[in-house]
C-alpha cells in the first residue's frame, strides 16, 4: 500500500475516533449542564412560585387582618343590637369585604362564623337567598377547628393549602375573632369567639405549571402534585432534586405544602436533540476538515519530501547523482544523507579496486573518457601507460595468491609514489592510476609534454624491477611491459586509447618484455589486420564459408596413407594471403576459436563417418584443437557428445595440441587432456620441439604421439648442419617414452629417405601429398581401397601359388 493511501486509512478512523470521543465527552457535559440548567431553572421557578405563594399568603393574611381590624368590622361585631348591626354596620362591612375581594380576586369565601358555626357574615358569590354555604374546606378541618375553639383548645391561626378534585389550589385561613379583644390574644375566652374563614384560590401554582409547560416543551406532561404537609414544618423550605427511573423529580417543601414536579426522561432527551445534531455536524465537519488539513500537512511536510527523495533516487545513477546532502535535522534529511552515504560507499566499491584502492577498470574508463574530453577542449596532451607485470603468474603459482596480492599492493604503492605530483612531469589529476585486471595497471598522465614525459615515467617504472621485486623478503624476478598511447595522436577516445596502449604493451611483451613500447603505425596496422581477420572469421563462421582440407599421413615403410590431418581453410582470408597460422591466433585472442574448434570437429566427424560408411574407410583423423580448449572445462564433454552423435570409434581420432601451449605443471591443462584421453581417443603434441618441454615432463603428459616440427625435418637436408639431426634425438626420446612419432613437412626425397632410415613411424608432407580437398580425399580412399583389394587378391593368389 502506498504511504498516501495508508495515511488515508489510518488518519480518518483515528480522527473520527478522537472527535467522536471528544463529542461524547462534550455531550455528557452538555447533558450534565442541561440537567443542571433545568434543575436551576426549575428551582428558580419553584422558588419564585414559593415567593409568589408567600406573597399571596401574606397579602391574604393582610387582607383578613385589615378586615378584622377595620372600624367597620369592629363596629359590626360590637353592635349591641342585631337590628342596628344589620342596618347600620352590615352594609359597610359587606362593602369592605367587596373591596377586599376586589383587591384580592383570589378570595372565594370570606365568612365570619359565630361560635355556633352560624355564618354572621358570608361573602360568597352566587345566590344570596339560601343560607350561606359552609366554606369548602377539606374534610373536617372546619368542624375540628370550631370544636377546638369552642373547647378553648385552639386559639391560634390555622392555615392550610389544599387542592380540590379539579386540581384547583386553595389557601384557607381560620382565625379566631373576638368582638372585644385583640385578635392575636390567645388568652381570649371562647364563649363569644367568632371564627373568620378566608378561602382563596392560589394562582401561583397554575402559573408555575403553565410557565414550565411552556418553557420545557408542551408535548411532555409534567408530573405535578401538591401534598398537604401540615406536620412538615421541620423540613420546611427545602428543595430537593432526585432522579427516579430516569425522570427528574423536584420536591419543594413549604410550611404548608409540599410541591412535587416530575420532569419525564423523554423531555430531558428531547431537550438535547439540538445538541446532538450540532455535535454530529461538528464532528463531521471537524473530521473532514482535520482530515483534509492533516492530510495536506502530511502530504506537504512528510510525503512530498519522501517522494521527492524517491524521485531523486530514481533519477540518480552513478554518473548523475541527483542526491545531495541536506543540512537539516529531520528524518527525511537523515534518510537522504544515509542514502547518499550508502550510494557513495557503493559507488566506491564499484569504482575502486579493493586490493589496491586504485580505480578499477570501469571507473578508469569513465575517468579516462572525462579527462580526454576536457583535454580535448583544452587542446592538452595526455599519455596512457598500460602496464602489465611479466611473470606475475609464476609468483602466484609458486608463492600463493597472498604473496601475489601483496606484490600487487606494493607495486601499486610504489607506482603511486613514482608519479608524485612534485617530481612528475605531468600533474596528477584525480585517480588517474588504476588496476584494470590481475596484473594489469593503467596510468593516465595529464598535461604531459608528449612522449618524453611518458618515457620518463615508463623508465622509472621499469627501474623498480632492476634489482628484482622484493616481497616479504623474497626477491621475485618479475618485470613490467608497458604500452604507451598518446592522446590525441593515438586516439581521442577512451576505448581507442586503451586498446592502443594495450596493443603497444603486447608489442613490448612480444619484443622481449621488460620494456616500454609506444604505439606506432606498425602496431596500428597489425591491429587493423587482426580486426579485419576477426570480422571475416565471424562472417565465415556464420555463413559456414569455411572448409576442411586433408593432409594424408603415410606409414613410413609402406608409404601407404593410414590417416589424415584435418586442416582448416578460410577462403575469404586465403584470398588475402592469410592462412591459419595467422588467423588462428587472432581467433584465439578473440574467443572465436571455440566455435571454430567445434565446427572443425563436427565437420571432420561427419566426413569421417561418411568415409567409413560409404567407403569402408578405416584410417584415422587427426584434428587440431586450440590450446584455449585446455582451459575449457566443457570441451571434453562437447567432444564426447559429438563422438556419440556421429557414432565414431574414438580410437580413430587424434587431437593435436601444440607443444608451446603446454605450460609445465599446468594442472588444468593436464586434467583436460586426461579427460579427453579417457574418451578413448589419442592425443598428439604438435610442432614438437619448438616448445620447451623438459623431457622428463613428457611422462606426465597423457599424449600418444609426437609430431616433429617441420623445421627439424627440413634441417635434415640442410648441409650446413653438421651435428646429429634433432630428429634423431626426438625419435630416441619417443622410443624412450614409448611414443608414436609423426614427422611433418617432408618435402624432399632426402628427408624421406632419412626418416625412413631413422625409423620414424609416419610421415606427412608435400613431398608425399599436398593437402586434399574432400573430393580428392574420397578419391584417394577409393583408390586405396581398390589397391588394397587388388593386393589382397594378389596375396591370396600368391598364397595359393606358394601353397
Amino acid at each position, binding site marked *: 500500500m502506498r504511504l498516501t493511501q495508508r495515511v488515508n486509512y489510518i488518519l480518518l478512523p483515528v480522527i473520527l475516533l478522537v472527535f467522536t470521543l471528544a463529542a461524547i465527552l462534550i455531550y455528557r457535559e452538555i447533558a450534565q449542564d442541561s440537567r443542571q440548567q433545568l434543575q436551576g431553572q426549575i428551582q428558580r421557578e419553584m422558588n419564585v412560585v414559593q415567593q409568589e405563594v408567600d406573597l399571596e399568603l401574606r397579602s391574604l393574611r393582610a387582607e383578613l387582618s385589615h378586615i378584622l381590624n377595620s*372600624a*367597620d368590622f369592629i*363596629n359590626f361585631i*360590637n*353592635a*349591641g*343590637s*342585631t*337590628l*342596628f348591626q*344589620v*342596618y*347600620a*354596620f*352590615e*352594609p*359597610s362591612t*359587606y*362593602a369592605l*369585604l*367587596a373591596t377586599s*375581594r*376586589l383587591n384580592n*380576586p383570589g378570595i372565594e369565601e370570606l365568612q365570619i362564623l359565630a361560635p355556633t358555626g352560624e355564618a354572621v357574615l*358570608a*361573602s*360568597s*358569590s*352566587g*345566590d*344570596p*337567598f339560601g343560607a350561606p354555604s359552609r366554606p369548602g374546606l377539606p374534610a373536617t378541618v372546619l368542624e375540628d377547628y370550631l370544636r377546638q375553639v369552642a373547647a378553648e383548645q385552639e386559639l391560634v391561626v390555622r392555615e392550610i393549602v389544599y387542592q380540590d378534585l379539579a386540581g384547583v389550589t386553595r389557601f384557607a385561613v381560620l382565625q379566631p375573632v373576638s368582638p372585644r379583644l385583640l385578635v392575636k390574644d390567645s388568652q381570649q375566652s371562647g364563649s363569644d369567639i367568632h371564627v373568620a374563614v378566608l378561602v382563596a384560590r392560589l394562582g401561583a401554582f397554575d402559573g408555575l405549571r403553565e410557565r414550565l409547560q411552556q418553557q420545557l416543551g408542551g408535548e411532555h406532561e409534567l408530573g405535578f402534585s401538591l401534598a398537604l404537609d401540615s406536620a412538615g414544618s421541620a423540613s420546611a423550605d427545602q428543595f430537593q432534586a432526585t432522579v427516579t427511573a430516569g425522570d427528574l423529580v423536584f420536591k419543594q417543601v413549604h410550611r404548608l405544602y409540599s410541591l412535587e414536579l416530575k420532569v419525564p426522561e423523554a423531555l430531558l432527551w428531547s431537550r438535547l436533540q439540538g445538541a446532538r445534531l450540532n455535535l454530529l455536524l461538528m464532528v463531521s465537519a471537524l473530521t473532514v476538515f482535520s482530515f483534509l488539513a492533516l492530510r495536506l500537512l502530511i502530504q506537504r511536510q512528510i510525503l512530498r519530501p519522501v517522494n521527492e527523495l524517491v524521485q531523486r533516487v530514481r533519477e540518480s545513477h552513478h554518473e548523475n547523482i541527483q542526491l545531495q546532502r541536506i543540512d537539516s535535522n529531520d528524518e527525511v534529511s537523515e534518510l537522504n544523507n544515509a542514502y547518499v552515504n550508502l550510494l557513495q560507499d557503493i559507488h566506491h566499491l564499484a569504482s575502486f579496486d579493493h586490493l589496491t584502492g586504485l580505480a578499477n577498470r570501469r571507473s578508469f574508463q569513465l575517468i579516462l573518457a572525462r579527462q580526454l574530453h576536457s583535454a580535448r577542449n583544452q587542446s592538452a596532451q595526455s599519455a596512457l601507460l598500460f602496464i602489465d607485470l611479466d611473470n606475475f603468474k609464476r609468483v602466484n603459482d609458486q608463492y600463493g595468491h597472498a604473496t601475489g596480492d601483496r606484490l600487487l599492493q606494493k607495486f601499486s604503492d610504489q607506482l603511486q609514489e613514482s608519479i608524485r605530483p612534485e617530481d612528475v612531469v605531468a600533474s596528477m589529476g584525480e585517480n588517474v592510476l588504476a588496476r584494470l585486471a590481475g596484473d594489469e595497471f593503467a596510468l593516465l598522465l595529464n598535461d604531459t609534454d608528449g612522449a618524453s614525459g611518458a618515457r620518463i615515467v615508463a623508465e622509472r617504472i621499469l627501474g623498480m624491477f632492476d634489482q628484482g621485486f622484493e616481497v616479504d623478503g623474497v626477491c621475485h624476478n618479475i618485470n613490467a611491459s608497458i604500452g604507451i598511447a598518446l592522446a590525441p595522436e593515438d586516439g581521442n577516445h577512451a576505448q581507442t586509447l586503451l586498446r592502443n596502449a594495450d596493443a603497444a604493451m603486447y608489442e613490448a611483451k612480444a619484443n622481449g618484455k621488460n620494456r616500454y613500447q609506444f604505439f606506432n603505425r606498425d602496431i596500428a596496422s597489425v591491429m587493423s589486420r587482426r580486426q579485419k581477420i576477426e570480422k571475416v572469421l565471424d562472417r565465415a563462421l556464420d555463413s559456414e564459408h569455411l572448409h576442411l582440407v586433408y593432409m594424408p599421413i603415410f606409414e613410413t615403410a609402406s608409404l601407404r596413407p593410414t590417416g589424415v590431418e584435418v586442416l582448416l581453410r578460410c577462403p575469404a582470408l586465403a584470398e588475402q594471403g592469410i592462412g591459419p597460422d595467422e588467423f588462428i591466433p587472432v581467433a584465439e585472442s578473440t574467443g572465436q576459436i571455440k566455435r571454430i574448434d567445434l565446427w572443425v570437429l563436427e565437420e571432420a566427424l561427419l566426413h569421417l563417418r561418411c568415409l567409413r560408411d560409404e567407403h569402408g574407410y578405416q584410417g584415422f583423423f587427426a584434428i587440431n584443437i586450440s590450446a584455449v580448449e585446455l582451459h575449457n572445462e566443457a570441451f571434453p564433454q562437447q567432444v564426447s557428445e559429438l563422438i556419440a552423435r556421429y557414432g565414431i570409434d574414438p580410437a580413430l581420432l587424434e587431437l593435436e595440441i601444440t607443444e608451446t601451449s603446454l605450460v609445465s605443471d599446468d594442472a588444468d591443462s593436464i586434467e583436460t587432456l586426461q579427460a579427453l584421453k579417457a574418451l578413448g581417443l589419442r592425443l598428439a603434441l604438435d610442432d614438437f620441439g619448438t616448445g620447451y618441454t623438459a623431457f622428463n615432463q613428457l611422462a606426465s603428459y597423457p599424449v600418444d604421439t609426437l609430431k616433429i616440427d617441420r623445421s627439424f625435418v627440413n634441417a635434415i637436408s640442410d648441409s650446413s648442419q653438421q651435428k646429429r639431426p634433432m630428429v634423431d634425438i626426438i625419435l630416441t626420446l619417443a622410443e624412450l617414452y614409448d611414443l608414436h612419432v609423426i614427422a611433418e613437412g617432408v618435402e624432399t626425397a632426402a628427408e624421406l629417405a632419412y626418416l625412413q632410415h631413422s625409423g620414424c613411424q609416419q610421415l606427412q608432407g608435400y613431398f608425399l601429398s599436398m593437402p586434399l580437398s574432400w573430393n580428392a580425399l574420397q578419391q584417394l580412399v577409393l583408390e586405396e581401397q581398390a589397391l588394397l583389394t587388388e593386393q589382397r587378391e594378389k596375396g591370396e593368389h600368391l598364397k595359393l601359388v606358394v601353397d
Partner: protein
Amino acid sequence: MSPRRFPRSALTPRLLSACACLLLLVATQLRAETVELYTWHSYWGEEVLGQFEVESGHQLRRSYFDDESVRDAVITSGRYQGFDIVVMDALTLQIVSEHGLFADLSSLNDDIGADNFDPRWRQACGVHGVPYTYGALGMLYRKSVAAEPLRSWRQLFVPPPEHRGRVVMFMDNIDTSAAALLAGGAPPYSEDVAELRQAYGLMRQQQRHLLARNYGLSYASEHGLASQMSLTFGYSSDELELRELTGQEDWTFLIPEEGTLLWADCLAVPSGSPASAATRDFLAFISRPAVAARNAEAIGYATANRSALPLIDESTRGDEQVFLSESILREVPVVPRLTVPAVRLRNRMVHAVVVDAQAGVVAP
C-alpha cells in the same frame, strides 16, 4: 353609607370661610355656652345659624360626618356623648333609641311648638327626635338624551337604549332594593322572597348597563363637564347639583309612576347628660316657622315644619320635587322598620350583586 347628604363644602368654599370668620368673631365676643352639632355638611343655613348665635349669645360648633356608618360607629362607641345635637335619620334614630342612646325630648314639645310639625314626621322621629327635613327618592336623567320622558323605575334597571352604558347607580341595601322592588311592581319594603328575588334579578340585570357603580352626584363631582352619565338614581335636591357640576342644564328629577320612598331627618340629643339650656334654645330656635322657612330656602330641602310652609318663598315652595305633593306624601310610606332577616337578605343581595359585578359575572 348613605349618600343622602352629599357634602357641599366643595361647592361653596367662600360661604364656608365666611361662616368660620363669623363664628370666630362671636366666640371671642361672648363667652357663652357652646352647642356641639354633629351633622352633614351644608345642611344648615349659615345666616340662620348666625342669627341664633347673635340672638342667644351661645356658640354653635359643628362637626361633620359624610357617612352614616361613621356617625353610627361614633354612636355605638359612645363618643357621640360629646355632642349636644346629632342629625339622625328617622329609622336609625328609632332603632338606637330603643337602647336608650338618645334622650326623650317630649319635655321640649312646647318649646319647639310640636304641633307645627307634620304628624307624619313627628311619628317618624318619635319622642327622641325633632323633625328637621324630608325628601323622596327618584330618578334623574337628561332630557336631551332621552328619546322620550322616563316614567318608570323599570327604566332605571332596564334602561332605554340611549341610556345604556350611561347609567350611574348607587348600591344601597334599602334604597336600591326598594327601587328594584318598585320596578318589579312590589312594595318597596317587601319581605316577600319571591319579590326580592325578582328585585335581585333586576339589580343584576342592571349591572351591564352601568357606567359607574356610584352615587350620581359623586360621579358628577369626579368627572365634572366630562360626565357621560345620562341616567342616575338620587334625591330631589340632586337635580340642581347635577346641573351645576356637569354644566348640563337638561338634568331633570322625577318620581317614577310606581311610587317612591321617603326619608326624614331628625335632630336628636344624646342621652348621657340632660340637654343643656343652649341645646334647648337651639332646638326651639330652629323650630320657629320663620327660621325653618328661611333655613329651607337656604339649603333646598323640604322642612318638616308645616307652619313654615306658607313663609317660604314661592319659587322654592313651588318645586314639587322638593316639597312633595300631598298625594305623594299620602301614598308613600315613611321608611318602615324591616325585620333583621329582611335587612340581612338585602345586605347580601347588594353584596352578591357587587361581588359578581366586580368579578365580571354577567347576569342572564
